[in-house]
């Protein structure tokens, strides 16, 4: 199908000169044919569209790339299914996503990965890039058959929320991953220092009588990770940075030339420990919301590039696990459909160019994944997200498509919403005519 998108505000990394993608923010026409971007700006000679869309009221961005979305399959289908969560991703404008290996069983065998990829392909939705488990059963004891898993489709190896206790296993995992050129995805958190903790160690946790996860849990883990990286030359992606002190170490590691990248969960750009209020279990996330200065440092690090990308850290949790006293409630929140509006909120509050903000959701995470996506370029797959930056909508059961209905933003109004999603030139979601 040949499609022309007319008059939309084209935002984010766009390749106009045929050489490199630059941040772009201007009303620009797009021409799509055979699932690919055919031309940007100027209508190709003799182009006749099967479909013309007037997008003059909308922004067009590359389809979003989410580094962390738990789809809950296999094993946790009562919390969410691949169908429900892949649909939620499309609703959120996400066309590529990576899922952590903490399923049940964990993604530690090629067969599981192949099945997941096969199921996802059948849905004809976003492209799925699974992370394999770094150790068998995520137990932190024996490293997995990384080469086999990579062949089955894993783009890297992670440990999700499961923490390492044995530093030697982490060293071996780095050496082994380095041998094949794989990236390890690690959430920096010391097992012993964070054990039992449910909230940021500080005045709020002290006052509410909640066990704390100290900033030290992050910094001690980072020191270990960076030492091992320096020794092995391994490439590591740090998942869910949470503290100002951790970001300082990351900045230094980048200066030292370590092959490191990092992401932040989008809700950590906004919420802090005080938002726990009266023990709101929706505020229970991992890592915990930290102090205001940590939040401000995360915002600044994202802007400066010390942190590469924003992710949704989408974690659907069901009522039985969430409607519990704070410390007993499962950590996690739904994020696929909030990723874009909460990023726009960060951009507007931090006075950041929209194109720059979109870059953190597209080209940068695609670079972390090592995939060819996140850029609008002639010849590239036409993965697009068309959003209304002014649309005000309420986060509630009818607006969220994810099976997980728990988010800190429950009942709150957000501004900006994806209205059309295109995957490889196919319109897989179209709400252009509707506002809530």
């Amino acid at each position: 199908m040949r499609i022309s998108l007319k008059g939309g505000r084209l935002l984010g990394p766009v390749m106009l000169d045929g050489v490199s993608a630059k941040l772009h923010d201007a009303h620009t026409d797009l021409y799509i044919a055979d699932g690919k971007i055919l031309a940007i700006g100027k209508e190709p000679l003799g182009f006749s569209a099967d479909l013309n869309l007037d997008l003059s009221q909308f922004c067009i961005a590359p389809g979003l790339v989410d580094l962390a979305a738990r789809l809950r399959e296999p094993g946790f289908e009562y919390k969410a299914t691949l169908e429900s969560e892949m649909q939620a991703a499309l609703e959120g404008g996400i066309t590529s996503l990576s899922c952590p290996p903490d399923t049940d069983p964990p993604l530690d065998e090629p067969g599981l990965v192949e099945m997941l990829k096969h199921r996802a392909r059948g849905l004809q939705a976003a492209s799925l890039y699974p992370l394999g488990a770094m150790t068998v059963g995520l137990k932190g004891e024996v490293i997995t058959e990384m080469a086999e898993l990579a062949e089955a489709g894993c783009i890297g190896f992670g440990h999700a929320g499961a923490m390492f206790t044995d530093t030697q296993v982490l060293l071996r995992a780095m050496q082994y991953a380095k041998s094949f050129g794989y990236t390890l995805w690690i959430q920096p958190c010391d097992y012993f220092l964070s054990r039992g903790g449910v909230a940021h160690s500080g005045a709020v946790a002290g006052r509410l009588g909640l066990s704390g996860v100290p900033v030290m849990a992050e910094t001690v883990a980072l020191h270990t990770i960076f030492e091992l990286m320096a020794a092995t030359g391994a490439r590591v992606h740090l998942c869910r940075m949470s503290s100002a002190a951790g970001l300082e170490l990351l900045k230094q590691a980048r200066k030292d030339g370590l092959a490191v990248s990092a992401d932040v969960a989008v809700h950590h750009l906004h919420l802090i420990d005080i938002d726990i209020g009266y023990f709101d279990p929706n505020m229970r996330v991992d890592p915990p919301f930290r102090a205001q200065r940590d939040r401000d440092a995360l915002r600044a690090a994202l802007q400066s590039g010390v942190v590469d990308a924003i992710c949704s850290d989408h974690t659907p949790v069901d009522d039985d696990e969430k409607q519990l006293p704070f410390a007993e409630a499962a950590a996690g929140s739904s994020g696929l459909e909030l990723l874009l509006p909460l990023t726009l909120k960060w951009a507007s509050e931090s006075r950041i160019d929209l194109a720059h903000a979109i870059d953190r959701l597209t080209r940068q995470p695609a670079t972390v994944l090592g995939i060819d996506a996140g850029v609008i370029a002639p010849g590239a797959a036409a993965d697009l997200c068309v959003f209304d930056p002014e649309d005000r909508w309420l986060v509630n059961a009818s607006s969220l498509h994810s099976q997980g209905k728990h988010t800190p933003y429950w009942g709150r109004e957000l501004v900006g919403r994806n209205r059309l999603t295109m995957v490889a030139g196919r319109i897989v979601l179209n709400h252009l005519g509707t506002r809530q």
Partner: protein
Amino acid sequence: MPHPQLSANGELKHLLTIEGLPRALIHHILDTAKGFLGVNTRDVKKVPLLRGKSVFNLFFENSTRTRTTFEIAATRLSADVVNLNINTSSAAKGESLLDTIDNLVAMYADMFVVRHASSGAPFLIAEHVNRTRGEGVHVINAGDGRHAHPTQGLLDMYTIRHFKKDFTQLRVAIVGDVLHSRVARSDIHALTTLGVPEVRVIGPLTLLPSGLEQMGCQVYTDMKKGLKDVDVIIMLRLQHERMRGALLPSAQEYFKNYGLTQEKLALAKPDAIVMHPGPMNRGVEIESAVADGPQAVILEQVTFGIAVRMAVMSLLVASA
């Protein structure tokens, strides 16, 4: 966001924490308790304020002592009391906390007295009944995790007011395992709200939570310095399990440094009172000579506790 324990017009609908209670309201509760003190010494120890009301003692964590004091307070107000020891009933069968509450509300419970091992559990219950039942059902926090034990805090304030009159001239020391103590947190909020100018907490750094300064306390690791010239000493119970997990090396070393002895008590003002929420570990946090000595008001606390719990229950019911 309105506080879940207050109604729209600022009346106390539930008692979940002392934090945020206005000073006047605390004094009103203590004044009301004073009125009930007489009931407890009469031949017929009953008033009909809660006649026909059903009070459910919901204890998700065992505590015979606290449960009994609530039971006595409720029966002296003529309420019907149902004791539920949840450890051995629904929770064991896998029923969720809020399902248990819905079932009891369907039996027309008027008041829940909740003890739970998780900080914040009574908030979850109060918010749930606010959402599903509106005004009619009241929740009293009888101790949640490390967070709060507001009736204990109030009875401690009653005791201090009884012996010391003016809060604004006092130096109060809270000694021991503040980290795990819901009593300490409730006492600190109450003392600062009532205008006590100097609240000291004394303990080893392994047993002190972060944020004590923000709560208005001065931190002492040296008990001898911390007790100097104080008017009130509140000793905290040390749980035996704290000896595990590298918080403390031994009970002996703890007693030597943080146990209240006559020698250390002599550093406080001569008329200082010694309090303890009970049950006491003699020889661990307090020496028998002090616990049974003339400055101890530990049994008075127990007596006042009944009156304070009667006051809280009657005020909650009157607010509806």
